[in-house]
């Protein structure tokens, strides 16, 4: 069942990064290449998704080395749909930066690095090998660190240092866990570890390894006590870079968490489940409270990433078919809506000449289409029907009710309200309020068609996931079914062995 389609999403941006590096210095060419890369990624990811949807989990044994000896790439429905959503993000960002005059690119390596970052995100989603996942995480960390440090402000460097230090701690924990697991089970293949761990569940070393993985992925996903690297760093980069970060980076952590704690160490009934439940609620609350005090467009959004990550991990912690499908639905909706909001953050800053909400204003009267398009992801994030965020929140809420977890329900409703408050704050400050009298406006105030296409493309998906929830939700239910049935994954990778 080896299909090279599985590796293509990761390889296409890698090859494009190489081509961009050969053509370095020719910035215009790089923009077109990013666009072409986004289109090809979308096609490849769509083909992969279609294949997995119709024929079930696909595997690819890299180099022809049989699992569990070689590195195996595995695309189950979760991986394939995340790859598909990533390709939407990639194309939207390529569209957003396609026109040269409105988005200056400060460093010739920015676009190649962004392609490498995308490559590592696809790789992390599609790999079926724990150590290979670590390698993709490292590629992601290095590329994003370099992208962060391109900002010249002192604060940008400070944010980048916080980011890299905390993520290095995460890498060390991850690597230690891999060492423990390999020592105990003698394998690194996800399916093979899962099959072997089943025999020795209460082994102290394995509990240690699970806890270390839990901590490592918590840092990557920016969960509550270890979330502060995120709002310190994201908003110092150009808008399209922070949109990629905000949309994808933490979500890879959430994905790794879902994969590990359903397949290898099922959470149910362990103390980690309780821990994750408490941490998720704290993450939701602290994220949203952090946002309330901010006045910087993209910094507010950064805090909201944290708060929303809490919803997804809460879905995992509640552990029922409905809760897991809710977590997956949330993940898919969030990647698209959040990327889009960051792009709007960039757009508003470009139109008003500042990232600070106090200096923005008057966009509703001067740029009506932008304002209307902004409402789609903003209201979706706040959970207004019929947009995608409404169903995402509704599903998690239902799962919490089903589990009789009153505290989760109350917290979720409060956080939903506070999210609404933040979105209204952005709306009234940047769009509705008259422009401040002393504001210095940039001369070029008409964003190009490219930028509009980028945000409209993502808004389209936000509407689709909401209006077409009847089509998306059954897929999420199938994903949850696959996640809860470890035997299915193990069988797909290892066959009858």
């Amino acid at each position, binding site marked *: 069942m080896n299909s*090279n389609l599985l590796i293509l999403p990761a390889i296409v941006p*890698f090859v494009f990064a190489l081509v961009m*590096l050969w053509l370095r210095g020719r910035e215009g060419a790089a923009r077109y290449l990013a666009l072409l890369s986004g289109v090809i990624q979308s096609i490849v990811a769509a083909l992969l998704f279609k294949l997995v949807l119709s024929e079930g989990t696909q595997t690819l044994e890299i180099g022809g080395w049989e699992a569990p000896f070689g590195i195996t790439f595995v695309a189950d429905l979760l991986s394939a749909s995340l790859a598909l959503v990533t390709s939407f993000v990639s194309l939207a960002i390529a569209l957003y930066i396609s026109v040269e005059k409105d988005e200056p690119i400060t460093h010739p390596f920015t676009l190649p690095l962004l392609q490498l970052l995308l490559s590592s995100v696809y790789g992390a989603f599609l790999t079926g090998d724990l150590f290979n996942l670590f390698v993709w995480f490292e590629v992601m960390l290095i590329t994003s660190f370099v992208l962060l440090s391109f900002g010249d402000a002192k604060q940008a460097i400070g944010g980048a240092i916080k980011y890299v230090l905390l993520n290095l701690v995460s890498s060390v924990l991850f690597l230690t866990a891999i060492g423990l697991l390999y020592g105990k089970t003698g394998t690194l293949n996800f399916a093979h570890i899962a099959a072997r761990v089943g025999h020795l569940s209460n082994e102290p070393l394995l509990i240690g390894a699970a806890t270390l993985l839990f901590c490592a992925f918590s840092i990557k996903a920016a969960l509550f006590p270890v979330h502060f690297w995120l709002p310190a760093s994201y908003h110092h980069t150009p808008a399209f870079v922070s949109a990629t970060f905000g949309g994808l980076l933490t979500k890879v952590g959430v994905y790794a968490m879902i994969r590990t704690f359903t397949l290898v160490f099922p959470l149910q009934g362990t103390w980690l489940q309780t821990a994750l439940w408490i941490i998720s609620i704290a993450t939701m609350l602290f994220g949203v409270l952090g946002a309330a005090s901010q006045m910087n467009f993209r910094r507010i959004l950064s805090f909201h990433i944290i708060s929303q990550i809490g919803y997804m991990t809460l879905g995992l912690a509640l552990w029922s078919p409905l809760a897991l499908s809710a977590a997956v639905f949330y993940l898919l909706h969030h990647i698209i809506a959040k990327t889009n909001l960051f792009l709007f953050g960039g757009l508003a800053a470009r139109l008003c000449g500042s990232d600070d909400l106090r200096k923005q204003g008057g966009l509703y009267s001067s740029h009506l289409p932008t304002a209307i398009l902004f409402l789609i992801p903003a209201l979706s994030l706040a959970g207004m029907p019929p947009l995608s965020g409404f169903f995402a929140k509704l599903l998690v809420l239902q799962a919490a009710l089903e589990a009789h977890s009153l505290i989760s329900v109350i917290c979720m409703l409060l956080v939903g309200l506070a999210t609404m408050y933040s979105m209204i704050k952005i709306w009234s400050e940047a769009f509705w309020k008259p422009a401040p009298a002393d504001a210095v406006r940039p001369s070029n105030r008409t964003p190009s068609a490219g930028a509009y296409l980028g945000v409209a493309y993502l808004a389209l998906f936000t509407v689709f996931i909401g209006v077409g929830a009847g089509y998306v939700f059954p897929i999420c239910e199938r994903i949850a079914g696959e996640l809860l049935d470890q035997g299915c994954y193990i069988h797909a990778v290892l066959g009858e062995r």
Partner: protein
Amino acid sequence: MSPFLLRTSVKFIAPIQLALALYFLLRGHNEPGGGFIGGLAAASAVLLYGLSFGIQEVESKLPVSWFSFALFGLSLAVFSAFISVFVNQPFFTGIWGPELYAPLVGKLKLGTVLLFDIGVFCLVMGFGVGLGFTFFAKEAER
């Protein structure tokens, strides 16, 4: 002050190092060695030469920058992995060609794996020398 002893000895040592690097590269598939270690050995030869004769001396003899050299290596490595896709094998599968007899090394099997190793060799050598020379240049500025 001219580092006379260093210069004289490097003239003999550097070629031996380079030959050794090639030897490492070619025997690397089944025995210890390979592109990475070969690349490091080659980079150390060039770095030693640059250290004793000056960076300009080395770089003026080269038609391309070290960055392009490393980039060429990376591209070659990716290309070698792709060959298997064109013959409908899993990505990265080694596709083997004829077997040759090379002096000193012994049997030498041609194939995409060797191509990959050459790619890694160029990447590591280009990266190593580029990195080293950047530091030398910074040091010289002080």
